[in-house]
């Protein structure tokens, strides 16, 4: 094994959340960019699904020279067969969540399970240290509220990359048309691993009433550079009915209630 680890990235078919237009799944594209930066020549990109998937060209545009497609029908993926294809790579990268289908985020866990290797999710940054004892991968992991955790692991391992990972995506039309999409092997169909979820309507959350700011655009821009105390009334005086009246007046004035 040379100095540079071999890296595979598994990417999914992306769809724009508003328009459904096929595109590279943002998180997956970031994983691909990290992988390319890490492994250079020893990087490979895989997609499990259809060769005709329109979003694959986007990955080419974002920098992949070629995409290797493992043909499979939607939802019928034998995870063991996928593990078979990528088992010889030191690091296997995925995104965090697909933009289509269930988007459960389970794939990296299932893959690691099938490969019998560790999985690290929400990776922001990946560093590879080579030492006499072998390859050590140091991952900086995303935690909420700006916290980060550093995790070290031996290879092989599966890393799910967080969409905020620092990778610049450069979209180039020429790569989109000149890159290649190959079919390799096939993954035998297996019973669907789709989680059997019950679908129910999301409960409505209470909406906080907020007075619309009635300011011209220029005034809003000004308020960004000039600090000024926001007005407001503290109703100390009077009975509870009087105080309620103050609130009601406010709501009426700002048309937040219509009675």
């Amino acid at each position, binding site marked *: 094994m040379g100095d540079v680890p071999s890296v595979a990235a598994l990417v999914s078919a992306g769809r*724009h959340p*508003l*328009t459904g*237009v096929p*595109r590279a799944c943002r998180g997956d594209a970031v994983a691909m960019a990290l992988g390319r930066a890490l492994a250079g020549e020893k990087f490979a990109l895989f997609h499990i699904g259809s060769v005709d998937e329109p979003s694959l060209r986007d990955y080419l*545009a*974002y*920098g992949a020279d070629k995409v290797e497609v493992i043909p499979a029908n939607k939802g019928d993926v034998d995870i063991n067969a996928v593990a078979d294809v990528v088992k010889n790579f030191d690091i296997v990268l995925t995104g965090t969540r697909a933009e289509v289908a269930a988007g459960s985020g389970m794939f990296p866990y299932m893959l690691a399970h099938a490969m019998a290797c560790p999985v690290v999710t929400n990776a922001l940054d990946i560093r590879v240290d080579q030492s006499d004892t072998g390859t050590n991968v140091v991952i900086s992991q995303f935690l909420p509220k700006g916290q980060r955790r550093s995790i070290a692991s031996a290879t092989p391992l599966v890393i799910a990359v967080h969409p905020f990972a620092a990778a610049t*995506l*450069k*979209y*180039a*039309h*020429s*790569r989109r*048309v000149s890159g290649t999409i190959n079919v390799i092997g096939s993954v035998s169909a297996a019973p669907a691993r789709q989680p059997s979820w019950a679908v129910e309507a999301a409960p409505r959350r209470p909406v906080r009433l907020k007075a619309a700011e009635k300011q*011209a*655009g*220029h005034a809003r*821009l*000004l308020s960004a*550079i000039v600090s000024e105390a926001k007005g407001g009334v503290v109703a100390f005086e009077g009975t509870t009915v009087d105080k309620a009246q103050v609130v009601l007046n406010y709501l009426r004035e700002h048309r937040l209630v219509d009675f």
Partner: protein
Amino acid sequence: MAVAPAITVLFWLSTATLMIGLARRARLWRAGQRAPVEWAGLLAVPKRYFVDLHHVVAREPYIANTHVAVAGGAVAAILLVALNYGLAIYSPILDVAIVLAALVMVAGVFFVWQRRRHPPKRLSRGAWDRLPYTLALFAVGLLVVIATPAQYLSAAIASVALFFLLAGSAELVLGIGFGAPMKHAVAGLLHLAFHPRPERFSGVRSTALKPLELEKMELGVDAPADFRWNQLLSFDACVQCGKCEQSCPAFAAGQPLNPKKLIQDLVCGLSGTSDANYAGRPYPGIAIGAHSGALDNPIVPQLIEPATLWSCTTCRACVEECPMLIEHVDAIVGMRRSLNLTRGEIPGTAPEILANLRETDTQGGYPKPARYNWSIDLDVPQAVPGKPFDVLLYAGEGAFDMRYQRTLRALVRILKAAKVDFAVLGGEERDTGDTARRLGDEATFQRLAKENISTFATLKFSRIVTADPHVLHSLRNEYPALGGHYVVVHHTALIAELMEQGRLSTATLTNGKPLTYHDPCYLGRYNGEFEAPRAVLRKLGATLREMERSGPRARCCGGGGGAPLTDIAGIQRIPDMRMADVREAGAEIVAVACPQCTAMLEGVAGSHAEVLDIAELVASALEVPA
């Protein structure tokens, strides 16, 4: 008379040298791509020189007259020498004519010298500073050799004079071969003959970018040799007068762009040299001497830094001012195309906006049907196939901006008041692709344009009206190359027309505040529409206080060409400078006619003149019929 044969020999020697130099330079130009050119252009050179070029030069009478004297005198003298000495006629009458021509030239050279003593900063120095001396050597040498009667012409004087003549001629004939200042004369004339936009000479404002043939993997300009050959030739025509530099808003804002330096860098690129000999003002913040190029080497970043290309607002002020009719914007967009299409390297928020355009057909990443949210309560008819109507209102990206929605609502009120039969596209409206195109994303532009063209094909209307000059420009001037031919009018032109026909009754503006009008680049310089907006304002009873830079020479607001997206830092902001122009004109209202200008000028910090679109001014003066 022994000097006469010497002049004959000198003449033919010079001619041969010039020809060899020209052949050497032409070899460089021919490294460029093929371009359709008309050889008949050569015949048109005198007209193009005396009318079109001189029209620009004459804006500065001092140098125009000086140039007429120097160049006119020189050309006349050389032609006469060719006749009298080249053909060995040796007629004394022709000698008198030569002397007269040389005298005119000497007079002109005097004024060149005068100006070079305290040159404006925009002029390049270096080799250009020696011109008054070498040209004087030529004229004086010629005078002495020819005007001195043979009996007084001692061998000593004759050889000194001949030496002068030789030195002066060297400046003239070696220029083209060695890329020295006088190359502008030969390259300039050839450039006039083979100009990349010959339409310009028939009075057309030729401003549309040429489409790339993407299927043939035409992906913009990576190395100088990717320019078309006549573009390479055009760079050689530059006289380093700095008129472009002086008018460039990005340069004035301290962004790393100077159109003169850019053209000179491209000259370095085509001749395979470094920029060390450039003797003008640099790109602000980028030192001279560290960049060099070669015909087949990538231009960015070895020759030109990417920030230089991304600073341009594509305002065409440089093109408007260039006496040599050089097309800077075509060159800049050509290089941007390569950066965009082959490397995907675009700064700022531009990559995000371009991704939005690919994925949502809007710049802001909005759902398309939301574009007409501002008109929900206005009962605006929506275009449906099979139901003909007169005017298609195309809102553009400005429709998503809350400030600009006020303008659009005002426009709808006006159209209704004038009983115009109009409709909007609703959820069918995509971006025109204009911003993508200026940013070099030709693929996205062409896709959007083709899809819009097929949407238009399902509808029956007679013309398109838009309040966005960028939309106007692409629909009117750039869609035809892709098969879409439409009558497109700007809202100010339509309002002027409605007023003319008496279909709008307006009161005069009541507040009487002093008002000025800011010409949008894409309406003015790109489309030549300066009059309609002013006519509308006059109809409203406004007294216009014109800014110093208005009309064809108006300063850009900084909003064009995707510049707000690439957002290259300078020392000041372009809209701030424009707002200072407004203040200087003593205006309290600045009338605008473009969503970009509105946003840029509204965004100026601190107290400033009120920014109102012409549609808003008209709507506020509408008289509702009783």
